[in-house]
């Protein structure tokens, strides 16, 4: 396979991380065992540097901001202002404590400038597998979830990643587990006859339990029933209680893996025949059991191979990945290494997700129209300096969007429409018009286009702007 194509297929695309390495196996192994260094540009046209520490936020800081925002909001509401004045103050308050705009730029800059694009590309797959969309407070937590759970999880086992993803406050909020309270929990008992009133809402919410089985692990192929789902919900009750009767008065440090016995459902549960004990430890028993389940291995092996190698290849070769899974006890580094090796071997083309395409053409051309980290949220938005979150949402591929937990599709036909194509053409045009490409389009054609026919078709387009757009929107760049 053509080297440039390999590089785009596994995630590098336009980054010369091949220099100094002997083989693609060597590059994959090095990347998988290295960490990600977050880079960015301070202003449009500026040079690439390390992402600044004052624009990184840990979970405690994020929670503290949510708590402050909430208490300020309560204070604003108490003032009994006219509606428009109250809304204005709320808006200012919201902006003051929100970090998601910065997070989205960090994400977009990482896709264009960070070191170790291979690992980032793997992280997009898992961020989508364990989807958390915007809901209530999650927009302020998604970045922590991505970096601290997904990206870090790439170095561990699937079982660890599963447990950490399910217990992160972003996931517990997104899939309503914060409202999942055991009907026989200490809380339900203390509610007594006032159960059901606003202060004493108790009862199971099986949303996370259901998706844990359907989307995150065994899939419906495992043939579980409603009782299995209910028992999952019972095991999960008690996880995610980030409020207490006074609102947000818990310590931020309680939020990393928020467990509260007070809301948990006592008793032994049973899921797909597995006995699960009561208490906090029950969930780990369940997730370890599910992580090692044959249907999980099959479902996820197929899914990850579909993403990196194509659907047909996946359905024929997923056993190779299950073998690695069994041999290494679900070590994701080994699973990823094998996946990427297979990706190079597979001849089937894969359709790149819109943002993956944006990042790759940004790296290929050296062009960029997204605000630098010192320009975020300021009033310097000239019409052609674009906010990262607009681009992601215009492309229909924003990891911070409100969406369903089955995430973005891996099926090409889900991304083919006149409007999707229109966006690609517009974005490529913007890069040419305002992005100051540093790479000549003819050298991109000669380096990255494999088919001789396409090469000559593209080269024969006389106008440079048209040649630039047609190349970046050509089948070989949209699909690798």
């Amino acid at each position, binding site marked *: 396979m053509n080297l440039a194509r390999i590089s785009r297929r596994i995630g590098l695309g336009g980054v010369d991380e091949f220099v100094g390495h002997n083989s693609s196996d060597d590059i994959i192994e090095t990347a998988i065992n290295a960490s990600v260094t977050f880079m960015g540009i301070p202003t449009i046209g500026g040079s690439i540097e390390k992402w600044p520490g004052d624009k990184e936020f840990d979970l405690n800081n994020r929670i503290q901001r949510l708590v402050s925002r909430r208490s300020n909001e309560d204070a604003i509401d108490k003032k009994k202002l006219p509606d428009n004045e109250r809304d204005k103050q709320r808006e200012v308050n919201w902006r003051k404590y929100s970090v998601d705009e910065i997070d989205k730029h960090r994400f977009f800059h990482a896709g264009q400038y960070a070191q170790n694009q291979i690992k980032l590309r793997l992280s997009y797959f898992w961020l989508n597998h364990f989807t958390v969309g915007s809901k209530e407070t999650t927009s302020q937590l998604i970045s922590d979830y991505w970096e601290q759970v997904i990206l870090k999880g790439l170095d561990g086992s699937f079982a660890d990643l599963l447990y950490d993803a399910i217990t992160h406050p972003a996931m517990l909020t997104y899939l309503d587990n914060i409202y999942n309270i055991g009907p026989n929990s200490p809380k339900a008992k203390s509610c007594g006859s006032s159960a059901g009133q606003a202060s004493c809402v108790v009862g199971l919410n099986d*949303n996370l339990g*259901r998706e844990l089985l359907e989307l995150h692990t065994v899939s*419906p192929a495992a043939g579980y029933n409603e009782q299995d789902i209910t028992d999952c919900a019972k095991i999960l009750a008690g996880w995610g209680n980030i409020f207490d009767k006074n609102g947000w008065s818990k310590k931020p440090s309680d939020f990393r893996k928020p467990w509260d016995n007070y809301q948990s459902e006592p008793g032994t549960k049973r899921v797909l025949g597995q006995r699960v004990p009561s208490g906090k430890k029950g969930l780990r028993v369940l997730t370890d059991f599910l992580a090692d389940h044959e249907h999980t291995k099959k479902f996820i092996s197929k899914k990850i191979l579909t993403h990196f190698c194509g659907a047909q290849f996946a359905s024929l070769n997923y056993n190779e990945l299950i073998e690695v899974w069994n041999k290494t006890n679900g070590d994701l580094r080994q699973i990823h290494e094998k996946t990427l090796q297979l990706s190079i071997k597979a001849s089937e083309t894969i359709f790149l997700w819109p943002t993956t395409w944006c990042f790759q053409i940004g790296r290929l051309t050296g062009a960029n129209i997204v605000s630098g980290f010192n320009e975020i949220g300021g009033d310097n938005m000239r019409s052609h300096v*674009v906010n990262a979150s607009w681009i992601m949402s215009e492309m229909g591929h924003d990891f911070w969007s409100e969406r369903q937990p089955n995430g973005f599709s891996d099926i090409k036909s889900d991304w083919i429409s*006149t409007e999707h194509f229109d966006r690609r053409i517009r*974005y490529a045009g913007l890069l040419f018009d305002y992005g100051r490409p540093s790479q000549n389009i003819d050298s991109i054609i000669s380096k990255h286009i494999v088919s001789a026919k*396409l090469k000559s078709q593209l080269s024969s387009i006389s106008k440079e702007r048209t040649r630039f757009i047609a190349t970046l929107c050509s089948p070989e760049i949209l699909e690798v």
Partner: protein
Amino acid sequence: MLRRDLLKAIPASLFLTGFPNLGATKDLKDGRLVVINLEGGMDGICAVPPLGDKSLRSARRDLLINENLELNPFFGLHPSFKNFGSMLAANEATIIHATAFPYTKRSHFEGQNIVETGILTPFSSKTGWLGRAMELAGVGGRSLSLDTPLLVRGNMDVESYYPSNLRGSFLPNNAVLDALKSIYEGDALETTEVLQRQLKTSRDSPRLRDPEGLAAFAGKKMQDPYGPKVAVIRVPEFDTHANQGTEEGRHSEQLEIVDNVFRAIKSGLGLRTPVQ
């Protein structure tokens, strides 16, 4: 006032207004079909509550709406449905309640897939029932979303419409589209051809892309005898779960959007509901 006794038993075939006939008579110009897909699942018991059912209050204590519009002695209508209520009263609409396909599992995604493919084994078809029907009927359609919903897939001649908001960007020009046409084959080639056709008519297109704006646009386009015969409008985020709420709350807001979509399509089509 709303007329009583509006909930009439109308056979499902009439609900799909003459749709299969379009295939037999390709030049038939009168049929139009707008499918509004409430993604995530509307709560039917909340939208059209069986108020006369004694168990309703005890079973749905936290979800009950108090100020329902009155349909008949047994059923009410959610207060967000003001326009739809007038349409019911004017005999322009009907409700087919508590209908379901024989799928009893509770997976959102399997259920939604069946709704769109019309095939009872989830994820077994790459085309939608509407797309296949349109193919048979030889009619083109328009989907008002960024992507092409599964529902209408199977018909090559589907346009999607969801105006871009990328500031400073230009509509793809003819030179670019000609260049892309020269390098594409198959499905993607058709996509570029449709884009080129859209380009010709895009000058008068509104930039609105909320469900209501899109619906008005759909209605306007469908007035044209040579315009699309089928439109799909997707109203997402109906999976409100624990946030459903009552009068105040996400689900009520969603229903209001649907109600506005009804009104907007009608006004786009140049129709008016008589005042009752």
